[in-house]
């Protein structure tokens, strides 16, 4: 029995400090991402969520250049760009996507420049990889309480306005008719999403963090049609994928082709994608957006 256990959990897994920090922050961030992600998917804002995390690259690389912690860069970029994108965006989906794409392209260009300065002006050649692909095992010290605080803040904001947000996500006109300030709510949500994405950028890197935001939420919405339950399922799925990913990454130090460990991000993303595919097997044909919308309008 203990032989089996020790082959699953490599020796030292439970006593390693970085692993503890990674497990704790990973689970919290994945849970918040899952909950926020349900709204992102419902509002069809996956592209915005994805762009926000890409734009976090700018914050992350800028923070490296200035020498402050990447968390602050990510958070600042998330809040500022999220707010700007919401204020500049229009309501029509096609032109909204084009506007998002234009902003995204310009900011990625800027990030390229900042990363170039990072790699040439200092000796930190690994910056590109750290910023883009994350480094969960490097989460330490002050970052842990800061991450937890921001995650709590995001959850609190979400809990505070989840009912009007749900209504405005499903039917903007209905929400407006009830006197809900839809634009303001949209702005608040973008900022919450900006913070959330900033947090998950720390874990899986800026270009993989959309997986934590969208994947568990999209899977959960296929399994249940009740929004609150979906938020719970998404949070649990995200946390489980992160934990399993950390475990596998820790184990993979002895795997081929080189004894250097596989990246955590790849494991987490692969697990999330597998869950999404499996959820399709379970209930084929239950995922038509119109059905979901109708069911939810009834539920609210």
């Amino acid at each position, binding site marked *: 029995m203990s032989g089996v256990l020790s082959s699953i959990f490599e020796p030292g897994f439970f006593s390693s400090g970085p692993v503890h920090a990674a497990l704790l922050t990973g689970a919290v961030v994945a849970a918040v991402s899952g909950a926020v992600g349900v709204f992102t998917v419902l509002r069809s804002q996956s592209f915005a969520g994805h762009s926000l995390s890409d734009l976090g690259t700018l914050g992350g690389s800028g923070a490296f250049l200035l020498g402050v912690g990447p968390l602050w860069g990510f958070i600042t970029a998330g809040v500022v760009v999220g707010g700007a994108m919401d204020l500049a965006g229009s309501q029509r989906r096609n032109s909204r996507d084009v506007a998002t794409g234009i902003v995204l392209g310009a900011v*990625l260009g800027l990030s*390229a420049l900042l990363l170039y300065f990072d790699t040439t002006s200092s000796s930190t050649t690994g910056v590109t990889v750290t910023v883009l692909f994350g480094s969960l095992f490097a989460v330490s010290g002050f970052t842990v309480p800061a991450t937890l605080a921001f995650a709590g803040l995001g959850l609190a904001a979400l809990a505070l306005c989840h009912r009007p947000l749900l209504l405005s996500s499903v039917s903007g006109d209905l929400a407006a008719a009830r006197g809900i300030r839809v634009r303001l709510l949209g702005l608040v949500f973008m900022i919450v999403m900006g913070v959330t994405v900033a947090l998950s950028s720390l874990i899986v890197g800026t*270009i993989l963090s959309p997986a934590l935001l969208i994947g568990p939420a999209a899977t959960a919405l296929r399994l249940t049609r009740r929004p609150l339950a979906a938020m719970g399922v998404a949070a649990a799925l995200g946390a489980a994928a992160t934990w399993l990913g950390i475990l596998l990454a820790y184990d993979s130090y002895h795997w081929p082709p080189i004894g250097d460990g596989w990246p955590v991000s790849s494991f987490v993303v692969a697990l999330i994608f597998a869950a999404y595919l499996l959820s399709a097997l379970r209930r084929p044909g239950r995922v038509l957006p119109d059905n979901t919308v109708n069911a939810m309008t009834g539920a609210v």
Partner: protein
Amino acid sequence: MFAPFMENTWITASIIAAIAALVGFFVVLRGATFTAHAVPNAAFAGAAGAGLIGVSSLIGLGAFSVGGALLIGVLSRRGRHDAVTALIVALMLGLGALFLSWSTEYAPEIYSLLFGEVLGLSGNDTSLTAILAVACVLILACVYRPLLLSSTLPEVAEARGISAARIDALFLVLVALATTTAVPVVGALLMFSLMIGPPAAARALTKHPAPAMALGVVLALATVWIAIAASYQTNWPIGFFVGVGSAAWYVLARIGAWASSRVRSGHAP
């Protein structure tokens, strides 16, 4: 800047710009911005994987961008298009990270794969790019009318017996082909700004398809040429100039369109 070793760069980049603008016209028309962003990211994983098993990176780029594009097409029939796209992007980048962690490439190579590299293109690269580009243009010419119809009036196209799913798959393959040609030069993350910026700018100025496509090509060529020249002079990454330049055209075009509509409606200053 016009030294012999830069010759291939200029030719290849010009071909890429033209193709990106032509395909980009339909990307903007169909509102498929997110797809256009996703496919180059898949190509990134392909390039990383090709480096690992030692085949030409162009094969990896092609296989992964076509595969990724079709995967988006297949899965989004069963679920939400944007959520599926976001998942595929993440999956492909995760694969890319995995392949990179296995390989012995150094950080600068990863960086140039993501953000572009103008130097060191060979004549071989140029001829391959040209072949792919010709294939792209031929496909585009063959399906121009049905693609245009199904992008603007999907119901009418469906009524005339044009299968939306088939057109969608074809469109995704076109995006994948264009991506394959471009990623080695402008980089995975910046390819799509070339596909969005100039065509969106052209469409803000004219609604007619043919002039909009021509204008898009001109703007894309201008973007790339300025970017190469500036990148050569400053030694800064070409992706920066491509990304910022493409966005700048769009902003200028929107300002121009706004000004001309003011003039036309009699509110001239």
